[in-house]
């Protein structure tokens, strides 16, 4: 797990954000290309590569969802794009409402807004669930399911918001 290694961290899902930030700042001070202006070409390239890796690592690990996705991928666990079965009914209704709005039926708007708020609440709930799951090293399968669910909901919120915006401007 290069992202953990480069920051000198144990590969764990639960990370202390302050510790992560501290490691990132320390390593940046050491490796930033600014420190190698007068160095040879090979050293400059090394500094550039190291810093790019540090930045990519920090960006990924500081975000719990990106961190979990990276972690699972490194463990060879793939996420799926399928709709979580427990959401199927709601998504079906949601699509109907979206169709109505697209067809110019403004009465669907308040319902869509309510649905959006509900999905946003679900997002926050999954974030809280993830934080709990990170503390359990045996929970990888549950984490995978939660991430799938989260990704699916997050796309839904995005699509609904987009549609609401489009029709506001019309």
């Amino acid at each position, binding site marked *: 797990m290069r992202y953990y290694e480069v920051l000198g961290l144990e590969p764990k899902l639960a990370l202390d954000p302050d510790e992560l930030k501290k490691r990132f*700042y320390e390593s*940046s*001070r050491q490796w*930033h*290309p*600014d*420190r190698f*202006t*007068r160095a040879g070409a090979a050293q400059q390239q090394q500094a*550039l590569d190291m*810093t*790019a*890796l540090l*930045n*990519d690592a*920090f*960006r990924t690990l500081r975000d719990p969802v990106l961190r979990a996705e990276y972690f699972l991928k490194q463990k060879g666990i793939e996420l799926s794009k399928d709709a979580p079965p427990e959401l199927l009914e709601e998504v079906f209704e949601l699509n109907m409402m979206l169709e109505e709005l697209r067809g110019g039926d403004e009465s669907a708007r308040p319902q869509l807004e309510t649905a959006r708020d509900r999905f946003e609440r679900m997002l926050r709930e999954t974030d809280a669930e993830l934080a709990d799951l990170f503390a359990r090293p045996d929970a990888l399968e549950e984490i995978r399911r939660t991430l799938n669910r989260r990704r699916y909901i997050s796309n839904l919120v995005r699509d609904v918001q987009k549609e609401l915006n489009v029709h506001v401007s019309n």
Partner: protein
Amino acid sequence: MSTFQIDFGKSKSPIVGIDLGTTNSLVAVMDKTGAPKILSGIVPSVVSVTGSGDVLAGAEARDALITRPERTVYSVKRLMGRGLADVQEELKLFPFRIAEGSESVLKLRFGEKVMTPPEVSAHILRKLKLDAEAALGEPVRQAVITVPAYFNDAQRQATKDAGRIAGLDVLRLVNEPTAAALAYGLDKRKEGIVAVYDLGGGTFDISILRLHEGIFEVLATNGDTHLGGDDIDHLLMAIALEDVQSEWGEDISAKSDAVQLLRRAVIKAKEELSFVPQAVIDLEYQGKRYQREIDVPLLNRLIQPIVNRTLEPCRACIADANIAVEEIDEVVMVGGSTRIPLVRAEVEKLFRTRPHTELNPDEVVALGAAVQAGILAGHVEDKLLLDVTPLSLGIETMGGLVSKLIHRNSTIPASATEVFTTGVDGQTNVLIHVVQGERELVKDCRSLARFDLKGIAPMPAGSARIEVRFLIDANGILNVTARDLRTGKEHSVEVKPSYGLTDEQVEAMILESFEKAQDDFAARQVREAQVEADAVRSATERAMKEPAYFELSDEERAAIDRALNELLLVYHSNDYELIRAKIDQLDVATQKLAEIIINTAVGTALKGTKVDA
């Protein structure tokens, strides 16, 4: 003769910080005490070509806006890294004269001479370089140059090209608002969140930074590279032109000199309105006079839409930084247009904090560039800048869609890798189209370059595996490398920039500029050393005719002879340091002679010369 102070310490040449602005440019350096200081005055970002073909930059060129408007250009920064289609709006508002053959790279006409925007900027940079060399007394070869944070890859590359053409090794491009934060950060708070609002002559930037133990971490940036004080000038100009037409019964908009006089009058009135409630636009042209009073409420009404256009990027930036507006501890104002009271008031309202205006908004970017130069030179060890890329980077995929590889506001250097393969049997090259922007369709983003992966061994479709690495470096400029995953070998990448100069074109321009550089620092130093050598030599030869000369021992006289001969030997060497060394040697050899002459008050042969001065 004995008072020459020549520093033979071969100190590494200084790295200067340059603010290459739309309206004005400045150069600064870190002095020995570790404080950044401006070297020489403001250089107007104006370039003019004289009738005899000489190129002027700075104040002289600004004067030529009135006398030679058709051979003079200002605000060229608006054209940097842009294509003909991008600048149609600019062409309506600015007197840019686009030359034939500007399809691939924009070219500007100055009478019979034609220059690309990087070449025009290079003349401004060269002027700054000469000013810096004159102030420092040593050659300047390396520089940090600032760019608007919201500049895209092509605009950054064009700025770097301008530096190279001017004979400068551009060690780093720094974003203007970040540079300003560095300048302010010198004696300011150690921790906290700072917003930098930078409204310059032609560009607007907003950056939000977290300060932590000397680390300046940019959280997010936003902006508009077509928004600035120029736009305010245009609004006032439109009113004034209409006025003049109704008063004089004459449309002067086609008369370049009249337009430039009016523009100057408009800018003067605009600037006064930052300090007084009323000002007059005052134009005299060919015996006629136009005067119009303008007050702050009118100006405010006119510019409110422009100020509003800066507020939306500010809100987006706060959202991208993932902070609440209350978390912003300080707001720093940068750029001449932030002197306008309405701008300050709106910024204060949005950020709910009184903005900082202690440092001169015209100088703060150059000062910050000098601090960054100090960091690169190793003089400043406690500070480190972590900047971000302002725009997302992506590649074109099926159906004209963009697949994003590096998201905006990622800390740079940032990288992404992608594996490409062939789509048909026997295919030997893969074309990758790289774009910058936030939209989903390629046509709504900015084309950056096309990379051609060539020389793929023919094989069935889908079997080739070329790993391409996209790396945005600390300058915010994209580098692409490719590796064949089957062989592990580096793969060649041919770059076709969508806008801008190829490497070969830049090289040719560098060569040309070297041949034409008449103010070359070394040549000037050699001439100065020779003049000094002449003075020392004639003073010595005169002293050798004095009776005092014969009071010296044989060895002392031989030493003078030897030193004089050695000076003559190196006189034409073109090595000013060597000439100065020999002057110094002669100085030492003649020291006793000078003392005797002065002590015995025999003559004033030496006093009358400039040697002791």
